[in-house]
């Protein structure tokens, strides 16, 4: 999910994007948060909304694209939109590219992640079948099981959120990020050391992993420098993507990628979709939605926070609270994917906040993960071919660009997966089967087009 963040930095309050664009009640997410905006748009004091946490394991709920709406004249709105559009696109390109680079570098060098050692319990059907039809059927069944698990978890999360079981969700979130930051990091480090034949004794290992994990927990769940938070979020997205690349069988992975984008589209845009309902509930309560599992590119921290009753309505100025926002962590546990759930944001009663908020944009970690899974699988199975990887990379970036453009046009939460994954899949299969032989033939004859 992509969201814009309001910033008060250089513009007057009235220029800031504030709350939701339209005044209809169940407006989809307004992703902008206006710290100073007066309660003119009463109902939507721009609760920060990031996508849904509910996405369970596979992806993080953050598959929404959300943009806020400035409380200005339409022409100026558009102007604002495009004025901030290009910079935001680049602010998202960089982390997505970094995550993909980490995943591709690992796949190409560490053989562990391309070896097939079993499957997750979510994909019980094997793909070592004698016939093609059976294999296809098995992958479709695997996909159905995986998607239904995701749907169930999402609905569970929505139910939990509706009944305000915040502590449960918070605990779930912490457990899964603990596992990700410690266990998966330990495994990753072990495999990298094995690949490069570097010896590391246990005390050093313990110290390294402990420091990495502890700082990660602090940065992600509490406070920390923005760059460090972003780095940790990229790291855990990459780790999760590597786990998926390793444990999802070949064909199932592709079918799952396709199915997840369809699900994302449905869940975010349909009126009865779980994610949309989640967003609307959060909106009604004037709370920010699940800041966890969101990568945010905001620049500034609020200088202070006042805890307010989360159920208070009305002229709540919800300041942009990056720490809550950054409170995203992947809760991918093997048994289940807890949803990321965030405490309702403490709001300011209209106090002036720290000023230098800058406009930023948020993208859910689930999007990172699935983009990296696509590119990583292209690198792993493209028969040593870099062209396929690069083509998928460009396709995903273009999809992200288009999604942000749509975000700027529609100014509501949008799923970030469908366009990119569609382009990525199209380019993967066509490059692997059509372009690769052509380019190989050209390169061997030193023909340049």
């Amino acid at each position, binding site marked *: 999910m992509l969201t814009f963040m309001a910033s008060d930095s250089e513009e007057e309050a009235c220029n800031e994007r504030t709350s939701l664009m339209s005044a209809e009640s169940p407006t989809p997410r307004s992703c902008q948060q206006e710290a100073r905006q007066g309660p003119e748009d009463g109902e939507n004091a721009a609760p920060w909304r990031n996508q849904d946490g509910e996405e369970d394991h596979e992806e993080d709920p953050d598959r929404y694209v959300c943009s806020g709406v400035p409380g200005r004249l339409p022409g100026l709105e558009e*102007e604002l*939109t495009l004025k901030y559009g290009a910079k935001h696109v680049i602010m998202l390109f960089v982390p997505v590219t970094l995550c993909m680079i980490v995943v591709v570098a690992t796949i190409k060098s560490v053989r562990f992640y391309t070896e097939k050692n079993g499957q997750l319990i979510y994909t019980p059907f094997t793909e070592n079948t004698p016939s093609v039809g059976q294999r296809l059927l098995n992958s479709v069944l695997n996909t159905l099981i995986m998607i239904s698990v995701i749907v169930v978890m999402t609905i569970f999360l929505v139910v939990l959120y509706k009944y305000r079981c915040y502590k449960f969700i918070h605990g779930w979130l912490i457990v899964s990020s603990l596992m990700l930051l410690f266990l998966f990091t330990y495994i990753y480090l072990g495999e990298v050391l094995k690949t490069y034949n570097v010896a590391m004794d246990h005390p050093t290992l313990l110290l390294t992993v402990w420091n990495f994990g502890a700082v990660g927990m602090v940065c992600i769940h509490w406070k920390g420098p923005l760059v460090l938070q972003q780095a940790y979020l990229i790291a855990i997205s990459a780790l999760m993507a590597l786990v998926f690349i390793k444990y999802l069988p070949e064909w199932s992975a592709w079918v799952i990628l396709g199915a997840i984008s369809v699900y994302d589209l449905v869940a975010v845009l349909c009126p009865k979709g779980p994610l949309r309902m989640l967003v609307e509930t959060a909106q009604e309560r004037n709370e920010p939605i699940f800041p966890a599992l969101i990568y945010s590119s905001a620049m500034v921290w609020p200088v202070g926070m006042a805890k307010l009753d989360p159920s208070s309505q009305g002229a709540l100025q919800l300041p942009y609270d990056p720490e809550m926002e950054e409170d995203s962590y992947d809760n991918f546990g093997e048994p289940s994917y807890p949803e990321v759930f965030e405490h309702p944001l403490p709001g300011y009663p209209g106090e002036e906040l720290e000023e230098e908020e800058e406009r930023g944009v948020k993208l859910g970690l689930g999007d990172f993960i699935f983009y990296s899974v696509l590119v990583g699988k292209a690198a792993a199975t493209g028969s040593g071919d870099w062209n396929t990887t690069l083509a998928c990379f*460009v396709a995903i970036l273009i999809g992200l660009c288009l999604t942000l453009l749509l975000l700027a046009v529609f100014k509501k939460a949008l799923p970030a997966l469908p366009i990119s994954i569609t382009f990525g899949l199209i380019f993967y299969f066509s490059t692997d089967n059509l372009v690769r032989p052509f380019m190989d033939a050209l390169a061997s004859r030193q023909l340049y087009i």
Partner: protein
Amino acid sequence: MTAAVFFGCAFIAFGPALALYVVTIATEPLRIIFLIVGAFFWLVSLLLSSLVWFMARTITDNKDESLQKYLLIFGVLISVLIQEMFRFAYYKILKKANEGLKIVNPDEPPPSMRLLAYVSGLGFGIMSGVFSFVNTLSDSLGPGTVGIHGDSPQFFLNSAFMTLVIILLHMFWGIVFFDGCEKKNWYTLLVVLLTHLLVSALVPRGDQGLWNLKNNNNPENPQLVMASFLSILMKYTFVLPKTPDACGTKPVLTTEDALVSPTTRLSRPNWTISEVVTFTAGSDILRATRPQTAEQLAPGLEEGLRAWSEGAGRRLQTQGLQGRDFPQEPSLGSCLEGDSGFLVH
């Protein structure tokens, strides 16, 4: 082989493109986006052309080597045609995007067509170079001996130079192509297409068998490289005359004749910005036009402009223009968009 060859060839092939990117494009987000969209367009054109080649190959399901070679040449020609078509399509899309950017962002000048031509050409070039060379590069990192079957031992070096040439050529082709489109000069497009075909169809001699580098065709390879560099020079001569005339800097006038630094806007508290005057600087004529109305310039304004221009050694020619008289399309030869200023009363 291994690291020395890898890094050497990588920097030969991609060094200039990387430098161009870092210095000119990496600073502006909009340019990065246009670069990536250009790369995407090239990728789509490659997809279509490999589809055509693949279909041709499966239709003539022949194992004859020479037929495969001719099919490949056919594929190359089709690919060049499709690439130029996509360049034209990108030009059209950029025109539309420019209109949109002008409308929604009136404060900032939209990027000029020349800049977009450069960025799109570079995008095409980078993608083309990367796709041609990156597999060869990754093979050069591993162990091996080049030329063990009589092929040229300079395979990697030649490929690196050719990649460099292609990247730069795409950039130049982009600029020349867009210039031709802007000026509606269709012969320019034909020239771009023909030179592209010429460069792509240059097959190294000694093409026997799959690897056409047999029989020590070292004498031919320098020929190839030289031909390509001649193409670069040719492109450069096309590009040179198209540099715009020396545009005036953005003049900012006040009625007190104070010529403030062109890029600053005056913000004196008791003054208001009364009208936007756009100056077109020819060689020695400064024309001040008011785009919105047909009235003459306000007397004080004209006085100030005249005094300023005389002080700057230029003649002042004022004319009140209708809105449509204002030049709509900044051609590549003018620097209109760099010449607007504010007049503060």
